[in-house]
């Protein structure tokens, strides 16, 4: 979707503001927000693509003025409601009001080390061979789906070069919407700055994205 999250090339946000000796957390609630997001992810009720899409669906004015942990919490409440675990009305009241859906797993303290160490690999074996090889010239597709995609707007309908075949991975555009993992080959595609930004582009700039095969057409 062309949501507020798709920020590449937008202007007006001012300078980057690095904070010297930045702490890991700026408030106690940020710690809880991190832990709650990971704990609820462990339910196994949604995947990372669905949770990214829930964040993208936050209204633009809100998204752009929220801290990232606030974005996480807003999206988490959407996911908890959608999957029958907890409602915003319950959170408003501060107490449980109905029996929740049954999670595949509750993340207890003893499981944390193992779960973090395993992570969530999303490479999947594919029988097919990659359509493209390093050095091939490709053009990214032009589309504007209302659904989840990982092809940023700035890199649509652009000509670039395959630099690497990175393996086969879960396809987020399908997986975010419960349509299965549908793995595809993923490629690193490099574009010249001028191809993307046109007049006035930094002549020393190249930009790469990692693109699923269905984002690409052979030139």
């Amino acid at each position, binding site marked *: 979707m062309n949501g507020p999250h798709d920020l590449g090339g937008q202007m007006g946000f001012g300078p980057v503001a690095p904070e010297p000796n930045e702490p*890991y957390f700026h408030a106690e609630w940020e710690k809880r927000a991190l832990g709650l997001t990971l704990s609820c992810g462990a339910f196994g009720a949604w995947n990372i693509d669905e949770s990214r899409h829930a964040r993208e669906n936050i209204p633009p004015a809100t998204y752009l003025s929220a801290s990232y942990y606030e974005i996480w919490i807003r999206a988490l409440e959407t996911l908890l409601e959608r999957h029958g675990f907890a409602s915003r009305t319950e959170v408003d009241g501060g107490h449980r009001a109905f029996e929740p859906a049954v999670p595949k797993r509750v993340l207890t303290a003893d499981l944390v080390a193992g779960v973090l160490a395993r992570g969530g690999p999303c490479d999947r074996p594919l029988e097919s061979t990659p359509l493209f090889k390093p050095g091939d010239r490709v053009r990214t597709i032009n589309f504007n789906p209302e659904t989840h995609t990982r092809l940023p707007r700035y890199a649509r309908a652009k000509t670039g070069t395959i630099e690497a075949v990175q393996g086969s991975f879960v396809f987020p555009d399908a997986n975010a919407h419960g349509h299965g993992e549908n793995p595809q080959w993923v490629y690193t595609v490099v574009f010249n700055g001028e191809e993307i930004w046109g007049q006035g582009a930094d002549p020393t700039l190249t930009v790469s994205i990692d693109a699923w095969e269905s984002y690409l057409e052979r030139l």
Partner: protein
Amino acid sequence: MEHHHDDHEHHGHHHDNRYSDMQARVRALETVLSEKGLIDPAAIDAIVETYETKIGPRNGARVVAKAWSDPEFRAWLAADATAAIASLGFTGRQGEHMRAVFNTPETHNLVVCTLCSCYPWAVLGLPPVWYKAPAYRSRAVIDPRGVLAEFGLVLAEEKKIRIWDSTAELRYLVIPERPAGTEGMDEETLSTLVSRDAMIGTALAGAAT
């Protein structure tokens, strides 16, 4: 554009006021989920402790120092970063599919996630606020020299800049150039020259002092 919850109250954004006090909102959420038996508050403590004390940019700095010192490791890192990094004990969440990219005299690498906040947690820990904020995510791909200048890094005009937008599940670690004058330093000492920002690409490795 990043604010703490206190700021929201003062700035009066048109927010759903459920979120005007994040401390209270998140506490209520944790209470409801605990009452339902869905979460274990001690697990949250364990997650926080892990990222405050065990998983952070010192991990990545060890990878870089070894890449500087050990040509075989460097080659392994270039060929299979996930396995090479795992050999040092750094694995897991947001480090499942690692790629190392090497700065050279000709090319400087810079990592961004324009679409969200993808970041190599296993080697760098949790991302800083600026990495997740709109200013960096919007500008790194179009005006990297402007962004780098805000970090105090001015590259030579002819230096090529390569931006890696983390649009898939590959996570990128920049291996900065080894500073001059560090010959003979052991890995432990070398690792102290490697900052988090040098491994994102918004800084160079520190000079030997």
